[in-house]
Every structure is written in C-alpha cells, then in structure tokens.
C-alpha cells in the first residue's frame, strides 16, 4: 500500500540530495573571489571626499551603504549616473538624488584670490586631497589638476577669498554630442 507513495518520495529525496551535493560542489569549485562590496562601492563613488552625503568621505559612505545604514542617493557629485551605477551593482531600484544632500552640478575647482589670502593655512588643513599649497603667513594657491571641487575649503576661510569656478573648456576635451540630443548618461558607469 505504502509503496506507490514511498517510491516517488524516496526518488525525489535522492534526487534532491544529489542535486544539492552537485550544486554545493560546483559553488565551491567555481567560487569567484569577489572584491569586498565596500571596495566595489567605493570604486563607483567620485572620490571628491566632499562629505555632502553626511559621511566624512567617500569610503565611509561606501561602508554606510554596504551596511545598509545609508541610501544610494546621497552623493550629489556622483549624480544620476552614479546612482544608476550603484543601483546596478547592488541590484536596487534607481531613485532620484535626495535633494537634502545637495544638487548635481557642474564640476568646479577652487580658486584662491591671491591678493586677499592672509596665509592662515586653514584651507590647507581642510582640503581632503592636499590640493592647496602654501605655508603659514604665505600666499596659498590651488593646484587645479588635484582639486576635486568638494567646497570643503570654503567655510574655514576667514576672509572669504576662495571661489569655486567652472574651469575653461579646452577644445581638446570636446566630445561629439549625442545624435538624438537625449539625456546623456555621463559619469562613472
């Protein structure tokens, strides 16, 4: 009586066991050693270190995303494209940039009004990427190629002599426009 029931159950059990073993073997045999997810997230962040996301830099923000503490739409310099890349990596929904943390804008660089600078070194201490050179009581200047445009040097300046400017477009940076004039997904993907 029981046999017609038992046989299929047993067969299925054995099959399940076999497939399970097979899958287990395959997953251990072909394991892909992937980058820890924090590194992968950090890789996609623009590294401006601007702290607009509410974390003291890009890596802390990456850690916060990885731990689920922060959302993926808190990085204004990364913009839409950055959010899309993060969503892609983490398998999440793309969502618009959270305006609480700022707006996406053109990449700028800091320019010090060298006449007004009093040489207080406060901006040098604030710069996350050492893009400002100068010494105490000496004029400071920004190395344009190193500046990420994070704005962090603006608040500490006691004489407000730092301005964020959009660098001149060089004709060598010119790119062909998108033929259908649709929105372009620039940035890091």
């Amino acid at each position, binding site marked *: 009586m029981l046999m017609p029931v038992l046989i299929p159950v047993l067969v299925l059990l054995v099959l399940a066991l076999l497939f399970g073993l097979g899958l287990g073997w395959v997953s251990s045999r072909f394991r892909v050693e992937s980058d820890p997810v924090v590194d992968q997230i*950090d890789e996609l*962040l*623009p*590294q*401006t*270190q601007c702290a607009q996301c509410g974390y003291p*830099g*890009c890596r802390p923000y990456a850690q916060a995303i990885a731990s689920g503490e922060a959302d993926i739409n808190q990085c204004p310099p990364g913009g839409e494209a950055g959010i899309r890349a993060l969503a892609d990596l983490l398998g999440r929904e793309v969502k618009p940039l959270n305006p609480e943390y700022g707006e996406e804008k053109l990449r700028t660089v800091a320019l010090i009004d060298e006449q007004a600078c009093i040489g207080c070194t406060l901006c040098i201490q604030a710069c*996350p*990427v*050492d*893009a400002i050179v100068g010494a105490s009581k000496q004029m400071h200047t920004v190395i344009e190629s*190193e500046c*990420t445009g994070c704005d962090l040097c603006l608040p500490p300046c006691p004489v407000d002599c730092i301005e964020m400017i959009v660098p001149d*477009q060089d*004709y*060598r940076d*010119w*790119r*062909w*426009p*998108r*033929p*259908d004039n649709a929105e*372009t*997904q*620039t*940035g*890091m*993907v």
Partner: protein
Amino acid sequence: MHSDPVKLTRGAGQHLHHYHGGLRLRHNKKISCLHPTVRPPLPELLVIPLHQHLGVPAEPVVSPGNLVLKGDLIGVEASSQHIPVHAPTSGRIEAIETRGMSQASGIPGCCVLLRPDGEDRWRTLQPVNDWRAVDSETLIQTIVATGIVGLGGSVFPTGKKTEIGKRAGIHTLILNGAECEPYISCDEMLMRERPAEIVLGAQILQKATGAESTVIAIEDQMGEVRRALEPAIKDTGSTDISLIRIKSIYPEGGERQLIQVLTGQEVPEGGYPADIGLICNNVATAAAVATAVTEGKPLLERYVTVTGNGIVEPRNFMALLGTPVSHLVAQCGGYTGDVARIVVGGPMMGYSLPSDQQPVVKASNCILVLTAQDLESPQPEMPCINCGECARVCPAQLLPQELHWQIKNAQWEDTESYHLSACIECGCCDLVCPSHIPLVEWFHFAKGEIREQSKQRSLADHARSRHLARDERLLRIKQDRLDRIARRKQALRDRAGQSRTIAEAIERSESKKAMKSPPEPDS
C-alpha cells in the same frame, strides 16, 4: 593564426587580397582635375593654428610685431616630440589670438596671425647635402624639425612614426596613394605633377626606417598617375620600389584596409602596422619629406582640393598653411547659389566647418562645398529593422546595429566586447542604412563618452590615492606626537627613580590630568 605575422607581411603587394565589406562609390574626382595645380596669390592675412598635429599644442615662440622670414619657427610643441610650426611666408606677426582652427570641434584655439609682406623671402635653408650619406638619425631629425605630419588627414608626426618603424625593424614601407574618398583629388594631382618627389621621398623614408622595399599603392582607375609614377620609379634605377594598383572599393585607402589588401594580414587590435613589419605613409607626406631633406624646406604648404557642387570651378591648389578657405573659394570663381555646408575632407569622413573663415591646416586635404540638394535626405530617421546591411559593408567586421543599441542604452562594457574601438568611422554603415540612423555619429559620441569616463575614473582614482595618502600622513603625525609624549614621560619616570618626591609629584599631576580629558594632540 600563423606563426609570425611579420614574415607573412613580407612581399606586400605580390598578391592582392580582399577586406570585408566596403562600398563602390561614385568618385566625383574628375571635376577637380581639369586644371593644373597652381599657387593662389598670397592672402591678406594668414591664420596659423598652433595645433595642427596629433599631440599637445605648440607654444608660440614669436610675439606680435616680430618680423619673420618664410620658414622661420613661430611655435614649437612643448612635449618631447617638439613638433614645430613655421611661418608660411615672410611678414609681420600681427597677433597671437584665439581663432577657428579648422578642427572637428569648431572650438577656436591659439593661432598666430601673420600679415604677409608680399616678398615671400626665405630664411637660410640647411638642406641635407647627400641624403644617401647620412645616417637615419639625421634624416629623422630633419623630418621632425621640418614639422612634417601625416598629410592624409591623420596628422600623426612623421618623425615619430619613422622612429617607431626603425625601432620595430620594419621590412616594408607602404606609400598610400589610394585616395578612396569621393571628390578628393589632391593626392592624385600630386602624383601626376610631382612623381619624382614622391619616389625620392620613398627612398629617403625607406632609408630612414631601414625598410627593405617600398610599395606605392594607387587605385586601379588612376591611369594618369600610373603613367607618371612608372617612369619616375624607373629613373631611380631602384628595384625595391613597386607600384601596385588596387581595386577602388571604399575605404581601401584606410591604412588598415590597405594593409589587408596588400598583405592579407590584419593589424592587431590596439597595435600599429609596425607590429607586423610595415609602415604606411601618405604619398603627400613622402613628397614633403623629399622637399624637407633635399632642400631643407619645412612643411609650409600642401595640395588642397577645392570642390563640390557649391563651387563654380573646382580645382586643386598648392596652398600655404593658414590660407583662409574663403580665399581659395574666391580663386575658384566663388560659390554657386545654394551652399549649405563646407566640409574639410571627403563626404564620407570629413567634418563640417562653422564658417569659411577657417584656415587651411596640415590636415586639410580637401575643401568640399556642398549644396542643400547634396544633403537632402529622402526619409527621416526610422527604427532599425535589423537588416544587417551595416554589418555586411563594415570593413572592420563589426555589428554596427548592435553597437547602436548598446550605445543608446549606455551599455559601455558591451561596446567594448563588440570592439567599438576597431571602428574606423568610414561611414559605410551610415550610407547603406535604410533607416537612416546616423550610426557614425553614435560611434563618435560613444568613443568620446568612453574616453571621458576613463578620464573621470582615473581622476577619481587619483583623488582617492591623494586622500588615502593624506589620511596616512595625518595618522603618522598623530602617532609621532603620541610617541614623543610617551618618550618624554618615560624619560621623566626614569629620572623619578632618583627622587621619590618627584615621582609623587608626577603621580599627583598624572591623576589630575586623567580627571580632565586629555587634549587632542591633533586639533
């Protein structure tokens, strides 16, 4: 693949091969070949861009008000390549300012404005007396110093190319006279009118690169050219220069396609022809090398075709670099009625100019003036119907329709695996597309986008490493300070062994300190 591609490319031109795809196009070259080439009268003002070559722009070495002679140096590239720019005629430097440079972007750049004095006086020239007697190093130096770049349109510095070829130990020099784009006839006229210079240039380049033989490739329909070049080759008595006629199927004059036709081999992706034992130069470049070495004259002028339905009398000019396009057009009798576009280069790969006030530069092989009728399209853009014509004609054997989808959807990694970088932008796919999708424009766009992304990525990587370095430094400074304090305390403790009272005093102060929070050493 066979064992050694370098060996397989030996004997280039002995057997002709096919390349994938391509198109038979109407040549439209005859209209500009009716008159012999002339030098137009000196224009009132020459506008000489300082960036006419592949590389970084040259820096001016003259100032406004300076008087220069023909051939004087007016600018030189600051990089290791030292590509110079010379004064095309004698006169006064009027200004150094931002002007249109006849580049695809249309964005102006730094130009030297030269007002000719009308005397066209040369500076003292220093030709190489006997090119056969000098070593290749001297020849390469002369080529660099005379500012010669690839005149087929690539404007790759010829000195650098020659050096690459010499270092790679190439065996064959290919001179490209297969001017495959419709309308352009400047190379054809040059080969007809100055065959001896081309053959001499071939010999010099062959010696400079250390090549064993030279192949001059021309199109099969260039009868006049063959009749001019054959005796010129015979006159040299040299047996290692051969003239090969190849089928004119556009874009057979593209460097990679020409190599495939002549050798049956392909230049590896990301590599140079020198990797498979060859170097390819334009015939006009060879002629310029001959003039530079034997007469010491720098590159100041070039053959320019001015043609198209928008021109009254199309013809070829030997034009000074810096001559405004409008000046040449005027010499052709001006425009016909409804001019719609001015193109530098041919109709397949040229780029449009924002105005006719742009100068002739080293890359300007042709000024093509098109009418509205030439550009009229019978149908607006429609969706891709997957007909595969683009793939059939693609000389790089790509799948343009797939690339188009990937680019539209920003799947940049896929475009890489579909080898977008192998696209030579020849325009064949565009021309056969029944849906009239501007495929080449998409590929231009995508290449720029990918370049920008890799630039952004490297900027981000750079910023990251700077940030990490700074963090490390701050940490180190903090650690150093802590260490120093610890050492000082230790020293105090050591001394404390001498006197108990001192030790007690220290202990008292320690406990007091511990009650207050210790100050951050860093802030």
